[in-house]
């Protein structure tokens, strides 16, 4: 694991208005996540863990503070620039997979590569490699509805890593899976972190899932409570 942090949050705060009230799901949060670390975030509903994940993934912008990822402060980027930044730096894994139903597994995984200038051959090689990595090379022409939940989540993971981003963020990636499928997905995330050096930030409600991570952070009312290193 490289010692310089990939993610550096400094006094990170998020406010938004809900009716006449101002809500602060995240308050002056400081956090460093080293490169290659698999970090789990836990906390009750409304604790701010998903808000933090969305900020780190660049799909939301902080109200205050600095958010430096891979050496770049993304807190001031416009929506368009954040879009381009996400395509190069982040792979997002959703609880409900969010695969595009009209596209095959292969085409879903190929989507992030179409944003870059890869040749057709390069794209094919990368997609096949990603699908091989998640063990679904024999399902590449299946549509999402022809796959099981575990397989869909594996396709989503392949889609998240196909462009080789340094950071993977996962929002309850096992929340909709049965125990075996969940174990298999967690093992895959561990491999991606340990063998491929991916930095992973995962939000979960499941303590068993959190055990797969290198470190566990607890959030409550928008603040970090404790940090817990987990046994390898």
């Amino acid at each position, binding site marked *: 694991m490289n010692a310089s942090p990939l993610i550096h949050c400094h006094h990170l705060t998020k406010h938004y208005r809900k009716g006449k009230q101002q809500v602060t799901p995240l308050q002056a949060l400081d956090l460093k996540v080293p490169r290659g670390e698999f970090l789990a975030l836990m906390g009750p509903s409304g604790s701010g863990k998903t808000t933090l994940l969305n900020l780190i993934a660049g799909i939301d912008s902080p109200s205050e503070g600095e958010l430096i990822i891979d050496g770049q402060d993304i807190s001031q980027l416009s929506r368009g620039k954040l879009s381009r930044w996400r395509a190069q730096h982040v792979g997002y894994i959703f609880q409900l997979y969010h695969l*595009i*139903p009209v*596209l095959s597994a292969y085409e879903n995984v190929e*989507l992030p590569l179409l944003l870059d200038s890869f040749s057709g051959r390069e794209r094919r090689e990368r997609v096949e490699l990603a699908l091989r990595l998640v063990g679904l090379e024999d399902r590449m022409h299946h549509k999402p509805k022809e796959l099981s939940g575990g397989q869909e989540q594996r396709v989503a993971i392949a889609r998240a890593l196909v462009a080789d981003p340094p950071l993977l963020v996962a929002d309850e990636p096992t929340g909709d899976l049965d125990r075996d499928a969940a174990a298999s997905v967690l093992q895959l995330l561990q491999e991606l972190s340990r063998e491929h050096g991916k930095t992973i930030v995962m939000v979960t409600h499941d303590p068993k899932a959190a055990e797969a991570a290198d470190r566990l952070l607890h959030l409550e009312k928008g603040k970090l409570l404790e940090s817990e290193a987990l046994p390898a």
Partner: protein
Amino acid sequence: MLPFRYAIRNLFRDPMRLLQTLLGSLLVTLLVMGAGAFNQGMTRMLSASGDPLNVILLGAGSEESLQRSEIPDKAAGIAASTIPGIQERAGRSAVSPELHFMGYLQAPDAERVQILLRGVKAEALMVYPELSLLEGRFPRAGELMPGRMAWKSLGIPQEDLKPGMLLEFEGQSFRVSGIFAAPGTVMESEIWADLNDLRTLTQRDSLSGVTLRMQSPDHREVKLFSTRRRNLELSVVPEQEYYAGLAHFYAPIRGMTWVTALLIGVGALAGGLNTLYAAFASRIAELATLQTLGYSRAAILLSLIQEALMACLLGSLLALTLALQFLDGLTVSFSMGSFQLDMSPGVVLAGLLTGLFLGVLGTLPPALRCLVPPLPAALRSAG
């Protein structure tokens, strides 16, 4: 840019919505092309009906309608002998005394219908060079010569209109002596009769007007004649101006066809917006996913426009096929006679532009509404 196959596959995602969009576009395009072809056909007929060399002598005060006009019978002879510059052939002046009369005619096995009869003499052939006999010959006493479009007004099949058939007028039978053509003019819907016959039957001793064919489009001599012969109470109207006046008279009808097409189009556009909003709203989470992957809103919007545009243009192409098959050349009757709907290249282009307009304008509001929500909220959308 999103792959084109994404737009194509989304097109067939909900066949009912595709059908709604396609039928909406088909209806609007068909209406626009129908209105365009109607206007084009009517305008073309009225504008083709005037010749710059022809000038009409009508009764003063009746410049707008030959049917209401009355001039003395002698006006034709006086005009022929007095006005210089009238075309001549074999010693005969191109002066056509005419009686225009809306009369009731009945063809065998058909209803009694009101139709424009024009009582003429053989000189009419000198005044209207565009007129040609398709079958038979010019009418003599007891005979009629319908234009080739008169079948529509008579309410009979086109093939039944031929020389030898009998038409009943004012309780008498008239034999059809021939069929004439005068391409694109109102005359093709008229029925011509011998001038003396028509005057006898309508008990008129006057004429409706006299049409003169001049050697040049300069009508000053004719105007001078009408000024000098005030006793004849004549008014001089160039034939082109006469039909331009008629075209102006029918402008509100043409306007109404556009207004009707526009109103139905706006209704269909509102329906289309609703359909497309429903289609896109069910995909808010999917659209947010694409943004999360790094696709810009512009790229997604473009894909949604491609999707709607394909459906709308498909509808427009179907409308075009139907219009060319069933509307082009369709004969439409109105008080002046009949004309054919004209699917000109301009009308076809207007139809295709309508599909394009519906596809783009119909997509923008619902698509933007679905792309605006913040990503975290959109990703939580139930879809």
